[in-house]
């Protein structure tokens, strides 16, 4: 990887006072192929995640062929328009060792954190998006962003630790206002005037830190850890203030659309789809405007309660109570839900692929990681749990492949993704999920 060590100093006057502000390292992790935007600026790398609930119907989901130009069985037929941009990973396992198989929980927790949980209430430790955000998320206004198409603020696969979730945006309007409200500095604005308040805010953080230090003395060990996390948050906030004092680099793909209207609560598949697409469009707008480089989209929860019009079982109930059709060899209604999920995955990938940036697209300069919670949800299977990736991470990842994991740990994909994004790791995961083996077939 080419190193690009750039430190800039803002020198300017604010109401007559000279300021000198050290800025963080910017654009440290750049694409190897040297791709650049029309204005010559290097294109940053991005990492995204996507998740769907309740696995697959193996017989009509797993392609018969591996490698390039793999066949698209009927449950993933919707992926045809984006096949060239994705990789499908099958026959990768999640290992629980001495932990129980926790229904709809073990699978996603292992894939996102590398460790099998012991109870359903155990939240993962740090998830991969957080590790990667620490690496590539420091040069943007938001270290990471998360959104859920379920409309439920409790649905997230992004955790800084077992006690701290990155809560997702669930309302398109609220998300829009957060992204493009008062604090938004349009990267393509012709003029830039640093807000003097920002410098004061940064200065005031020293008093806040002092409050925290005083408080620290009266806390026990576990609460001190929570306060350490708070200190980290303050450092990131300070970093954000520094960024606000800098004229943002122009982003040709940044076009801010009008504010969306909000949607009612509900989980019928059409409504979820609509919400998913609105949030996806907003998320990509945030990425294109370089407001974040790490982003999580949550299509459906592990206990997905998405409903199908005219059918009385929500997705999760259907997975267990619907019989496998003897003639078809799968559960038709359950498969209907999975197909809807694949349509949304195709939309998500397609939206990234359609967003032009430099000589390529947003997707060319991103790596998207997608997973679910089960393989065959009817029996809570976690062997052979399917995963996807999308994007070529700046020309470093081959796409259009179907990879057979041969029963190796599913954590290999998370390990590979973190390495690609610059996280220094000898290995990743615990117990049988530990891996130091990347998925070499996809690496250029």
């Amino acid at each position, binding site marked *: 990887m080419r190193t690009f060590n750039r430190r800039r100093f803002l020198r300017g006057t604010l*109401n007559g*006072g000279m300021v000198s502000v050290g800025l963080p390292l910017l654009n440290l992790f750049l694409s190897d192929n040297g791709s650049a935007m029309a204005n010559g600026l290097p294109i940053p790398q991005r990492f995204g995640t996507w998740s769907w609930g309740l696995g697959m119907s193996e017989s009509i989901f797993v392609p018969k062929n591996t490698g390039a130009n793999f066949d698209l069985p009927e449950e993933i037929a919707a992926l045809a328009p984006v096949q060239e941009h994705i990789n499908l990973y099958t026959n990768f396992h999640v290992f629980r060792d001495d932990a129980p198989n*926790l229904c709809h929980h073990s699978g996603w927790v292992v894939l996102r954190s590398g460790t099998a949980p*012991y*109870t359903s209430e*155990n939240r993962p430790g740090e998830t991969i998006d957080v590790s990667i955000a620490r690496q590539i998320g420091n040069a943007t206004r938001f270290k990471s*962003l998360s959104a859920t198409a*379920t409309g*439920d*603020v*409790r649905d997230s696969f992004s955790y*800084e630790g077992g*006690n*701290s*979730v*990155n*809560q997702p945006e*669930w309302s398109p309007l*609220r998300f829009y206002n*957060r992204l493009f409200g008062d604090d938004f500095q349009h990267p393509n604005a012709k003029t830039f005037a640093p807000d*003097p*308040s920002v*410098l*004061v*805010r940064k200065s*005031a*953080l020293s*008093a*806040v830190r*002092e*409050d*925290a230090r005083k*408080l620290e003395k009266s*806390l*026990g*060990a*576990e*609460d001190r*850890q*929570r306060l350490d*996390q*708070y200190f980290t*948050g*303050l450092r990131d*906030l300070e970093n*954000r203030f520094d960024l606000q004092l800098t004229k943002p680099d122009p982003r040709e793909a940044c076009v801010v659309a009008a504010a969306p209207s909000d949607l*009612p*609560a*509900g*989980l019928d598949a059409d409504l979820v789809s609509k919400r998913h697409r609105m949030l996806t469009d907003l998320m990509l707008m945030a990425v294109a405007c370089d407001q974040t480089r790490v982003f999580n989209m949550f299509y459906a929860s592990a206990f997905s*309660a998405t409903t199908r*019009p005219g*059918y*009385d079982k929500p997705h999760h109930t259907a997975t*267990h*109570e*619907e*019989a496998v059709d003897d003639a078809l060899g799968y559960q038709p209604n359950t498969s209907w839900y999975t197909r809807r999920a694949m349509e949304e995955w195709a939309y998500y990938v397609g939206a990234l692929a359609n967003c032009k940036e430099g000589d390529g697209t947003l997707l060319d300069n991103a790596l998207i990681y997608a997973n679910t919670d089960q393989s065959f949800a009817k*029996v*809570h299977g976690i062997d052979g749990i399917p995963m996807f990736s999308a994007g070529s991470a700046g020309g470093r990842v081959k796409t259009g492949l179907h990879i057979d994991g041969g029963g190796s740990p599913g954590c290999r994909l998370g390990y590979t993704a973190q390495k690609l994004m610059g996280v220094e790791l000898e290995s990743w995961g615990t117990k049988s999920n530990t891996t130091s083996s990347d998925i070499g077939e996809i690496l250029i």
Partner: protein
Amino acid sequence: MGRQTVNKSQLAKHCSVGVALLLLVGCAREANQPLDLLEADSVARTRLLTSEQYTNSISQIFGEDIGNSLLTPMPPMQRVGGLLSSGAAFAGVTSDQISQIQQSAASVAEKVVDEFHRDYLIPCRPQRSTASDPSCAEQFLKDTGRLVYRRPLTDIQLAELVAIADYATQQTGDFYEGLALSLEAMLISPAFIFVVDRAEPHPDKPGIQRLDSYSLASRLSFFLWNGPPDDALLLAAQTHALQSPQGLAKAVDRLLASSRIEAGMRAFFDDMLGFDNFNSLAKDPAVYPMITATTLENAREQTLRTIVDHLLVQQADYRDLFTTRKTFMSPSLAVAYGTPSAKGWVAHEFPEDSPRIGLLTHLSFLAANSHSVRSSPTLRGQALREEFLCQVVPSPPPNVDFSSLEEDEHALTARDRLAAHNSNPSCAGCHLITDPIGLALENFDGAGLFREAENGVELDISGELDGVTYQSIEGLAVALRNHPKLSACLVGRLYAYSTGGPLSLKDDQATLAWLEDRFVANQYRLPATLKALTLSSAFSTVRSASSDEDTDSLNRGDWRMDDAPARISEEQLSLSTLQRFGSLESQL
């Protein structure tokens, strides 16, 4: 009444710590020894403000118009021991949340100093609005800081905040903007967003720690009002009046008499009943066209109004909430209930022959514990046990054979469909604990609307709750009303909520037994029980969290694993299976 000291460790020996709270409470009562509450204590905790507490704090300090204009920046809490509020004792803040807290703080501060609000929120005028005025800034920051931090600022804190205001005024050329930036820093401080129980040595009891006066004030107000202490309560803390029995009783009486007690108890019951589910609840409009977002919002409100009226206004018996026919009705709800409509909210009483009796027959309970397209006796039974009896129904085993659960085209009712669960020993243990409860509510569909039949088949709503059989909805309501664990559950939840964290199976059992006794002695009235709890030694005497965890491994698991304190025991599961099958299968 003479007092005897009950040694907590002795009491613990009587009770297997591996057994449920309900058994523990029963065991404590078996001991039949009045408790010397001088020895009782609770854990000193550090809690993150919940979303509602954050909003209430802003509203209480700066006005409801500012509080209500905010999008709360606080994260959702994880439910611990049955309560979201207990999750606040463990929740951390991510970098993203700190960023949102800062944005919210900036928004609040901007409003506080705008031309409309400054006239009554800022107690002085600067000599010139374009220049700093340390004296005026200090006056505002000192008064406001005391309310925001819930204790007086130290001299150093105040000096730092005044310096920020001065510097900011110099940078921006606007006194009010400078003041806002200083206030913004205050609203980001951990002294605001964390509620810290600070302890001090008890002057009369060597080796014992008690909450300092300001922490006691915060514990009182967040429990009873779900908001921060007001000026009078902080004054009582400042004069140490709260540390005397008389002073504390006077303060508690004032808090109980305040209209804010309604907000406090609404917050408690909203948490206990899991009403956060309503934030994303919806019914399939194709199946339930008359159930709108307004209907569901009103359903939540109906139950909370009913509880507040019954427990606080009427000061009636808690148990009667499950059999009362009195409630409140909105136009939107009237459509769903099939009753005449009136404008706005009105008191309503269902007739004696109505199937609507008590909280279990409210739309809130029935709709929230159903799927979006159909009812669920299992979810309803589980909710009854977990919310009102503090029992935890175990998750289904992952290796269960689901073939027996597949759709049966001949099954026309939920009872028929669920029969499959009850014919499978690996399912039956739990389903026999939940389904007989939920099946008694099958006269209400997935939205809570009344129905005589399902798919043309008249419904059999007979059932059984822990040995009490019934043939009607009223029978279930009465069985729950008279359930021996009903009151123990409420006082357990109240105690956990009041002290800001989950119960300790080892250390809190004696306090809980005592509190339940007080509840019974007070004829199951809430206000008197709130008073007994807040005046108890357990409320104001504290132990450290670390020693609690170090000495109580089971408790540690309970906290960390988010189990509610009253897990249904294997014995109960076995018993229910034995009753059904006469023998236990290996899967159990």
